[in-house]
């Protein structure tokens, strides 16, 4: 499915007042937007503020979104403008030359205060390791479909063409791969859920 129409139905529903549709988009994109904002903004607390402001602006501007670009591209531009506005209001937060934006983004952990939370850092590490271990144990055709989609950014139709399989098979392979990994992630996420998930 083309990027421009990927989230279009969710956006249309949100434009028509369906709160759940916008919430689904927030949950889907919050982590990616946070990482993008962290390229501009220093403190984790400020990153979170800018992310929240980004989604508020997106919500308020939703009626103006016409679907000429992908929803995520539109959201990304709002996040960039919101981060730049934040820097105008807080000039001391401007990143300096040695602080490479890519490195900062890689290090960003949403919700972590400036005093790092070792428990959350450990959980992020455990999640990464569990996902990679599960991926290594997956049937190769399932791992291939998931990786092409999530890492290489290929559309379902492209994956079907590349692998010479029906699109329905792509759907089930990606789903089965996710389910396999999700089952292995659940025990890792469980302690966190008891506190706050």
């Amino acid at each position, binding site marked *: 499915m083309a990027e421009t129409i990927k989230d*279009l139905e969710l956006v249309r529903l949100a434009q028509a007042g369906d*709160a*759940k549709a916008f919430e689904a988009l*927030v949950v889907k994109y919050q*982590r990616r937007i946070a990482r993008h904002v962290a390229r501009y903004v220093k403190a984790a607390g400020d990153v979170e503020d800018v992310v929240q402001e980004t989604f508020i602006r997106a919500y308020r501007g939703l009626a103006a979104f016409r679907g000429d670009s992908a929803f995520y591209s539109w959201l990304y531009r709002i996040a960039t403008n919101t981060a730049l506005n934040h820097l105008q209001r807080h000039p001391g937060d401007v990143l300096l030359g040695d602080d490479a934006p890519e490195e900062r983004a890689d290090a960003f952990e949403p919700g972590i205060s400036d005093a790092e939370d070792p428990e*959350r850092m450990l959980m992020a590490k455990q999640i990464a390791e569990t996902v990679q271990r599960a991926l290594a144990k997956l049937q190769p055709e399932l791992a291939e479909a998931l990786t092409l989609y999530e890492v290489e950014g290929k559309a379902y139709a492209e994956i079907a063409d590349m692998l010479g399989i029906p699109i329905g098979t792509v759907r089930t392979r990606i789903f089965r791969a996710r389910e396999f990994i999700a089952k292995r992630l659940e025990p890792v996420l469980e302690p966190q859920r008891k506190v706050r998930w």
Partner: protein
Amino acid sequence: MSLKVSLLLDGELAPAEVKAALEETASDSRLRDRYTIYGLVGDALRGNSTPDDGFSARIFERMQREGARIERGFDPLSVMKNEG
């Protein structure tokens, strides 16, 4: 139904199926959980494995304070609240 959650996340459902899938996912804590975890799997594969930890919930709280109509139907935290 988890297959539909996977397709909902990827924007791969037929337009006519999206509203029903949204409603079904929001009303079933296991399916909401799957929506969140499938998203986390993708982000982790792209090198961002941070757990939600209430991040989405705080976005929704702020949006509600700013007057947005939010039902918390997709709030990962509300899954745990509903399960007690």
